[in-house]
């Protein structure tokens, strides 16, 4: 991906939900770009639409109208199967509650996205070993999520997010369930992913302390950009 091309191009994006028979606007006429290699924090109060915006960029929800290009691809034109394939190759997910499979070990959780690729078992093992080493969990690869602390689980989730080498990482409140020390570790790790691996990171957070670690910050208020 060329540095001159924005990682995300958003034009007049609109999204609303139906609740109790009423149309509730969530995002209204959102327009902005996210530069390739940026580490952006989306901030705002509850209900401001920041998670919805993140979901749209990640391709797990669809806007009502507007334009949305991610990595040069107009993802609004993709059908469900194409979108799933696109996500598996272009987006890494980091969730607030880690969302690891409890019946799989750390190694197997990280390996999971690679099952959708044509990599051999040996190549997958090399990739997973490397990813777990990068997040400092080489010695915990045979542990199940229940045997890991919250910070360690989030590091496994980060390893899973980068295993397919996606250009974009989306993180929804990645430190929301962690104590300050663990949160610091995770944020430092994300900074490394951004600076050393060149990942574009889009992070939703309530926490101003976490937002300070990002290179740029966007605020949302009642579905519109506040800055």
């Amino acid at each position, binding site marked *: 991906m060329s540095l001159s091309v924005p990682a995300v191009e958003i034009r007049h994006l609109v999204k609303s939900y139906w609740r109790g028979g009423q149309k509730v606007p969530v995002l209204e006429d959102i327009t902005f770009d996210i530069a390739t290699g940026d580490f952006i924090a989306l901030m705002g109060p509850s209900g401001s639409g920041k998670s919805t915006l993140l*979901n749209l960029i*990640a391709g*797990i*929800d669809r806007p009502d109208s507007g334009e949305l290009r991610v990595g040069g691809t107009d993802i609004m034109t993709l059908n469900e*199967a194409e979108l*799933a*394939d696109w*996500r*598996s*190759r272009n987006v890494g*997910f980091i*969730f*607030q*509650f880690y*969302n690891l*499979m*409890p*019946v*799989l070990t750390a190694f*197997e959780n990280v390996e*999971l*996205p690679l*099952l*959708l690729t044509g990599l051999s078992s040996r190549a997958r093992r090399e990739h997973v070993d490397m990813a777990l080493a990068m997040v400092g969990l080489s010695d915990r690869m045979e542990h199940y999520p229940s045997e890991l602390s919250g910070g360690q689980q989030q590091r496994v989730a980060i390893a*899973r997010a980068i295993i397919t080498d996606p250009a974009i990482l989306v993180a929804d409140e990645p430190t929301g*369930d962690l104590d300050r020390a663990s949160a610091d570790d995770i944020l430092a790790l994300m900074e490394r992913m951004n600076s050393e691996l060149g990942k574009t990171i889009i992070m939703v957070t309530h926490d101003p302390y976490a937002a300070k670690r990002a290179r740029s910050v966007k605020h949302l208020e009642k579905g519109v950009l506040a800055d």
Partner: protein
Amino acid sequence: MHLLKLILRNTLRHKLRTLLTILGLLVAILSFGLLQTVVDAWYSGAKAAAPDRLITRNSVSLVVPLPVHYRDKIRGVDGVRSVATANWFAGIYQEPKNFFPQFAIDALPYLAMYPEYRIPEDQLRDFMRDRKGAVVGRKLANTYGFKVGDVVPLKGTIFAGNWEFVVRAIYDGAAPTTDTSQFFFHWAYLNESVRARAPQRANHVGVFVVQVSDVARAAEISKAVDAQFGNSAAETLTETEQAFQIGFVKQTEAIVVAIRIVSFVVIFIILAVMANTMAMTARERMSEYATLKALGFGPGFLGSLIFGESLAIAAIGAALGVALTFPVSDWFAAQMGTLFPVFEVSASTLWSQAACAAVVGVAAAVLPALRAARVRIVDGLRAAG
């Protein structure tokens, strides 16, 4: 391989829930097998019937006897190879609950028509020489401990009085499905005794067993036999042995239908239990399914996880249920004594058990799989935490 690993680990995730569901399936599949075997036992007489054997009885009712001299006329019908007489005796051995079928037979032709009854030659000779001799089946002998030489007293019901028979032979079945719960003795002995006690009832038989030379002509020969006695005082009804046996079953068909219905109700109940288990399982894992979808896994993968788990539970329950069907049916048959002459778990029952388990496994997974496939990722992820 990874899919199988995930299915296996998910199956064992809630061990108690899985164990209880498997236990429920085990009981249901076992009950189904047992009830189907009872139904099969009901029809065992019809299944064991030979196509070359016909039964001629009084057209009014089975309980109205026929003159024994009909035998010669029947023997003269074109296509008839052999004719034997048989009388239902209905004696009580010690007490009424000790029921077993007893027949007074025209021994030589009758036993020749039933090659599935295997009698040692020396015992057959002894039986033929003894007017009060009896041939008993192996199952009957085992049930009451009858041995060759034992005297078996029977209290007559149709033919009043106390009767004594000497066991001269024990027959085995040519196949596991052969009825070896019967008791045979000489019709001549019965007739002599009846002649002395109630002469007007002498020289009558319950049925004639007719062996035909050509199975394809069975219907034609049946008509020819009945035509011999048209407009007589005792008209006959001749039918194949199988039709005759089915006629018996039809008298109690309501019970058979009830048993069949109950067997399927049991399966329906376990289907509801299993569907509930799978629905709970899928609901609990909705955030995991949403995560898998976000990572790029399609609805087919999620469906495979759910169907795989459901089928794995059903397969384990079915395997245990089928395996237990054999010892439990043996125990059940022993408790029933000679009520069911043949009580064998058939191959079709085993296939039916497997099919029911497969249907339960698939049907229970349909709705949860559809729900998992259709759930929006953002809705599924909200269930996390």
